[in-house]
């Protein structure tokens, strides 16, 4: 009994760390046991969310006010983590749900190319939306926590490089440089921008304005998710093929 108790505590701590941020890359699968009903409800709700993401993406201009409103509403109503960095139990629960539901859907959606593509697209759109909602400091925290060596450039350096930055990046004005963050990224992580010469390079680093960092992070997210799905598929999501839950929700998708 003691042993079990301690184990629970350990897991609790680990998960506290895992859920200290609103957004995540879903690098670690969940380690706990959950009930079958939670399993189902989590999965169904995430699927609803992803479908909304898809619909809203089609019917509205991405990142427009309408888009934001609709997606915000859905995220709230389904109890997924929202933009606000509220502490407390309910936020923790939301993040836990986010984490677990993502992994459940991975199992369901890793099995064919079409499913993978759909899943990755919606997860990316959702991620992009939620990343953009983060405050600047939380964005940087997120990057660091996930080992993306993206530093923000100091105000002084920005000032010194202002003209060069404006001349290198599309859609970047003096005010934008002053007001928004610019990130310093090893050039190997920004190859698309390097190839088209749409970024300022200095000493092996690409200086990426705020509105472009999302693209870089998204690419990273897509790569990781792609790989993970391929692995899930190999390892044995097919073991679950006979399981009722998975078959049920594939049915609901179609």
């Amino acid at each position, binding site marked *: 009994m003691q042993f079990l108790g301690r184990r629970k505590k350990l897991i609790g701590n680990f998960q506290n760390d895992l859920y200290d941020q609103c957004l995540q890359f879903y690098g670690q699968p969940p380690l706990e046991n959950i009930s079958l009903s939670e399993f189902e409800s989590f999965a169904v709700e995430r699927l609803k969310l992803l479908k909304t993401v898809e619909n809203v993406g089609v019917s509205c201009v991405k990142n427009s006010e309408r888009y934001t409103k609709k997606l915000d509403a859905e995220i709230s109503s389904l109890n997924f983590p929202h933009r606000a960095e509220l502490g407390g139990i309910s936020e923790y629960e939301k993040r836990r749900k986010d984490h677990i539901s993502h992994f459940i859907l991975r199992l369901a959606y890793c099995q064919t190319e079409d499913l993978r593509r759909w899943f990755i697209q919606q997860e990316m759109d959702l991620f992009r939306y939620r990343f953009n909602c983060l405050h600047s400091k939380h964005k940087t925290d997120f990057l660091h926590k996930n080992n993306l060596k993206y530093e923000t450039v100091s105000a002084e350096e920005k000032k010194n490089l202002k003209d*060069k930055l*404006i*001349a*290198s990046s599309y859609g970047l004005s003096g005010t934008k440089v002053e007001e928004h963050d610019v990130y310093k990224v090893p*050039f*190997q992580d920004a*190859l*698309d921008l*390097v*190839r*088209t*010469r749409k970024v*300022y*390079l*200095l*000493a*092996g*680093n690409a200086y990426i304005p705020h509105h472009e960092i999302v693209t870089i992070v998204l690419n990273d997210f897509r790569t990781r998710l792609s790989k993970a799905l391929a692995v899930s598929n190999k390892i044995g999501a097919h073991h679950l093929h006979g399981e009722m839950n998975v078959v049920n929700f594939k049915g609901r998708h179609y």
Partner: protein
Amino acid sequence: ILRYIENQYFFNILPLAVSKNYFQNREFSFTLKDGIYVRYQSFATQNELEKEMQKMVPYKIDIGAVYSHRPSQHNTVKSGTFQALEKELVFDIDMTDYDDVRRCCSYTDCWKCWTLMTIAIRILDRALLKDFGFHHLLWVYSGRRGLHCWVCDDAARKLSVVARSAVAEYLSLVKGGEETVRKVVLSDPIHPFINHSLSVVEHYFQQYAIVDQDILGSKESVDKVLALLPEDILSFPDEKDPMKQWDQLCDLVERKKVKYFDKEIMLQYCYPRLDINVRKGVNHLLKSPFSVHPKTGRISVPIDLKELNMFDPFEVPTISLICEELERPRADEAEEDDMKDQENEQEAGERRRIRDYKRTSLAKYAKVFDPFLEAMARSRKGEMLKKSDLQKDF
């Protein structure tokens, strides 16, 4: 004769090859006397390489990538697992790629177009050092009409094919083949890299293009330039002096506010044209520095960037010159020989080789090569210290 090539080669190039880690997995290729090309050569030690060179007497030696297994055993490795792991980033610049904008010579060598190579070095060297943050660059004369650039940083060796291609694209401004007339197109905003490149080109343009290449000197060549200008500019300002003609043209471009056409012309005539080979990525082999060019006999020597403006390809030593210099009596060294008799044979052999090349015209090129090697050795030491420091923490 060839024995001398090997000696010089052995002494000069081996440190470079060894300093690029994992010597035994490095691929070499030999081009033999009858044109036979042998790939996937690899050696466990420098001595092995030397012995093989003496045995096969290659005319040309190319350096390839560091693989996952010994290249000489690649046929025994399970298919799919033999892979290139690391390879220096290399650039190959050849005068023939500029044929559409040169008038001075076709397939002979002349001094008038060498400025193009000077421009290429100035632009690319700056970009590789300052923009990309590389440190260990070696520029080598190809032996006839071009240059090779070896970027030997760790980071460069580990670049993926996609990354190499991105670097090459970033550095490319002249695009299009024979069918494309206007190969350089500039638009706002002008990237700082382009501005840097323009300032280099502008520095050389007047002397190189207007005077040496005489691009405004004949109707044919004037028409070529006109083809790059907007349609409503039908002829050059009426002026005898081509320099003044060019100046007036630039004024005209400014007045008409047809931005950048003059700059585009300068870039099309002068900006470096990178050989496509760099995109071939990790599998590709490039001629080793200090090898002999089969057609000219000149040695592929490293270029001293501090004396770049004075580099003259025609003054680069040929293999026959080197052999001549080696044949000269070594009376003054007889004494040293006696003293060193007690030392073991190998050391004496090496010492002889050192003395050998120092007596030749290659000495001054070795002086460029040595600091390059030393810098790489220092930085590798630094890396190893860093690593061991990290390990000590545990």
